[in-house]
């Protein structure tokens, strides 16, 4: 039995990792492809992205906002839109 690891994503606190993953997954599901993520969700997502193993590469010049777009095999995922106009997708699972 591993110890419970609490996770904090911006204003949100989760008692264990699984709750954080479920929260992000539910957030992703609320959006249609092509949507911009709203400001409230973006705060949580930005905190999550900072925990990504490749956070530095993903953030690059800096985050402007987030989108939900198509991913491989007909699924969807979060994309970070950087201030320099470039964009890259990331896995919310990798962030927690």
């Amino acid at each position: 039995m591993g110890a419970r690891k609490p996770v904090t994503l911006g204003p949100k606190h989760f008692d264990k990792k699984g709750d954080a993953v479920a929260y992000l997954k539910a957030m992703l599901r609320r959006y249609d492809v092509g949507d911009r993520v709203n400001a409230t969700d973006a705060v949580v997502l930005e905190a999550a992205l900072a925990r990504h193993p490749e956070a530095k590469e993903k953030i690059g010049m800096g985050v402007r906002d987030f989108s939900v777009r198509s991913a491989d095999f007909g699924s969807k995922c979060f994309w970070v839109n950087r201030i320099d106009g470039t964009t890259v997708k990331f896995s919310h699972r990798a962030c927690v």
Partner: protein
Amino acid sequence: MLVLTQERIHLFANVVGDAFVVDLLIVDEAHKIGDKGRGVILQDAIERAARTNPMMKLVFISPATQNPEELLADAPVGIKTVAVDSEAPTVLQNLLLARQVPGKPRRWTVETRQAEGTIPIGTLELANTPASFIKRLAFIAAAAGERGGTLVYANGAADSEDIGDLISQLQPKPHPKSVDPELAALAELARKGVHPNFRLVPLVERGVAFHFGNMPSLLRLEIERLFRSGKIRFLACTSTLMEGVNLSCRTIVVRGPRKGKGNPMEPHDFWNLAGRAGRWGDEFQGNIICIDPNDTVAWPKGVPLRSRYPIKRESDAVLDLGEGIVDYLAKRGRQTLSDIEGSEEFEQVGAYLLTSYMRLGSISQADLAKRHDPAFIARLDDVLRSLADQLDIDADMAARHPGVSALGLQRLLETFRSYERGPENLLPAEVASDDSYDRFVTIMRRINASLFPAFEPESRVKLYALIVVQWLKGQSLAEIIRRNIAWHQEVKRSYHLPTLIRDTMALVEQIARFRAPKYLAAYIDVLHLHLRSIGREDLIDQGLDIGTQLEFGVSSRTLISLMELGLSRMSAVALYEKIARDDLDQEECRAWVAERADQLDGMDIPAIIIRELRERLLSTGGAGPAEPFD
């Protein structure tokens, strides 16, 4: 003068608003007011023009009509009307029947059908055995029409390619250096504008071509021009020929003609098609060759007799079916569209009736009421009232979107109202943005669910969205085809090049240029209504509307300017590839070309496009539109 289809009259009227001023409206092929699905759109366009232009003169033209006065029945009271009934044939037409001699597959007898019977006129010896129906058409056309001016009617685009190919194999192969320069230029346009291996390329060098509606208009118009001039001697074509392409011929060859997807051609359409024979150059007679006239599969009702045919409005035809439309409308108010049967038959007329009801307050006030039973009209009024009571959409908005049901517009409005994630997400994203493709996917799904299942099946939505984005980005057809091939290769999916080319052309014409403008224009209109009602006018873009952008397949200022100057899209896109700036107005575009007038030939642009550039941008005469808005 503008030449427009019924859909584009509406689009035009929407864009110009109060400036929709018409002095004279000429409705050619007016019997098409009876066409399923589009007849009522035509009727609506005529009525709309008449409503906003009380002084307008209106002329209907239709061949071989039994009851031309029917078209005048809805003229406003006090307006002078006259039906001109003319029987005078302008050309002599020989109806020829070609039958295979039993036991001699290559030998065919030809007879002419007269009022009193048939008269044998000779036999045709084919060079090869016509093993398939396609071969019969091709070989008989090649044998009987070698003088040129020969049209072959094909049941579909794929057949037209096969027939053209077979005929071309029977023509002598020209020495590469002796190919006529105009034919060589057409081959070049097909190669660079579509694909290096497009089947048209080798055919035209032998004076043979095929022709169908989904081809880019510049290519189609050049084929028609070279057929008229006699350089293309054989042309295999489809029912597009009856949809407003005015092309005369010396001989037309037909076997079991179908219209659309396999429906036997109505006699009216057959004689409209046959009417192309004659008036070839300065000749006054033409031949119609009907192959296998006794074959009941090819000709289920025999070769149609020449006679006159009645005109009936689509709306009247649907109302004459009785309670079907009432039941449909009642269900349309309760259920989602995909659960209702008969949407193909009733949706367009139902939308027209509801819009009329909203404008007039009762169908009994509509012109068509006088042709139907008052009790039936009262039942129709009842069901329409219950529908109209559900609507926040007003009559003006409904009228702007003919063929789109106000009920669908209402459902969409409700979808917008219950949307919770910020109204910005409801708008299409600029095509240059990364969100654009995905946003269109979601919008198309939303349209399918609320407005009308225009982009079904669901498995095709992503493909449709991709085509729309490529088209709006101003990509050339050749580039869209190239990318489609690359995608097939990347995912290791097999493909058949001629089919892929035809399918891509069809996607551009049917989705990007027809469905997407129709339904996205309605989507945006309803969205703007919603944005105004929630105080978010700031999100409303005052730029060029999405319907017009899609019609022309352009989103940059430079491309729009080039097309405003009268260039076809194909030419505008080819030129735009050479122009760096995307914000040029018309004068700046003209100046760009004028500065480079001497270098145009060295730019690797097809000669036919260069010719159009010179005609439209460098000549001092008035530059009209390069193509009818077909």
